[in-house]
């Protein structure tokens, strides 16, 4: 089993939180601000938003939703693949945010908390529904070496310049998507956060609960696997 630890939920009693939220004016402000595109707030603006959310401010809740839902959707969608699943995950994430905002301590960044909730929810969904059945052994696609440390298959072909010529953009996207889907779910999450979202290893560690060195190891192996997949598709050895 993966070493991933599910996030421990905040402890404040649900009723207390709800009362607090209601006191701040429950119903009115969620509606009607649908398409307002908001600029990313500064850290100061964001903490103000969080404080308002904690006080039950609906407008703040929706501002946070609009700030983060596009990013979180992208991440969850990439991990899960299906729109319906992704929608469910994002709903759950923001429902949790709404209920547990009061217990958000602010010693981590809001974005880290949100990404963490999203990764947890997505991986939980995969685990519960056993959606990940087509896992592939990485070994076959990793580089191999002779006993003296040289590459096993030589010469190693440099296909980096010919890849784009050989495949249409669409085809390459499909190929890589399929390869990504063969990664272990946690490894895929790490790749998505790193290579698609541009997070640092340290941020990924905070988000996933892995150590930085575990993040590096997973990311490296996953990249080697993807590289091997591309090589094989081009008709070369993965080694």
């Amino acid at each position, binding site marked *: 089993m993966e070493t991933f630890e599910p996030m421990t939920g905040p402890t404040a009693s649900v009723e207390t939180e709800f009362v607090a939220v209601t006191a701040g004016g429950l119903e009115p402000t969620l*509606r009607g601000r649908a398409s307002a595109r908001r600029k990313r707030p500064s850290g100061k603006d964001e903490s103000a938003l969080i404080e308002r959310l904690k006080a039950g401010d609906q407008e703040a809740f929706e501002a946070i939703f609009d700030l983060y839902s596009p990013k979180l959707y992208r991440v969850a*969608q*990439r991990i899960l693949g299906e729109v319906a699943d992704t929608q469910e995950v994002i709903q759950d994430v923001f429902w949790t945010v709404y209920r547990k905002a009061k217990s958000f301590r602010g010693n981590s960044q809001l974005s880290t908390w949100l990404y963490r909730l999203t990764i947890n929810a997505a991986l939980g969904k995969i685990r519960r529904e056993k959606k990940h059945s087509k896992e592939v052994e990485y070994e076959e696609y990793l*580089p191999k*070496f002779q006993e003296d*440390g040289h*590459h096993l298959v030589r010469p*190693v072909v*440099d296909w980096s310049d010919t890849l784009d010529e050989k495949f249409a953009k669409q085809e*390459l996207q499909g190929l890589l998507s399929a390869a990504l889907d063969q990664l272990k779910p946690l490894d895929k999450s790490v790749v998505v956060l790193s290579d698609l979202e541009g997070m640092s290893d340290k941020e990924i560690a905070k988000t996933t609960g892995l150590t930085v060195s575990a993040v590096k190891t997973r990311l490296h192996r996953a990249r080697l696997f993807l590289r091997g997949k591309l090589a094989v598709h081009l008709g070369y050895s993965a080694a």
Partner: protein
Amino acid sequence: MAKRKAATKALTNKSCRQISDLVFDYLNEKLTPATKRDFEQHLSICPDCVSFLNTYKKTVAVTSSVKVEQLPPKVRENILAFLRKRIRRIGAFLIFLATYLAA
């Protein structure tokens, strides 16, 4: 110095395997100057590792460019509708509770 020479020799003579282990930190510019020098010296004499490095870099570049579906407006609306409904339900429940307790 002797130690460094030995390390260089090991990398240049036989350790493509080591190169593949170091690639990750090399690209993140996390290698110590000495290891980086050894790494690059190995590359200068090993076309196989140059190919390996190029294809590794290309893999990362292609992965980064994978298109991801953006949040469709309809889905955004669905999610908000779901959240509003839940929030309303809790509000109604709390009003009922307050009324009940007051009675």
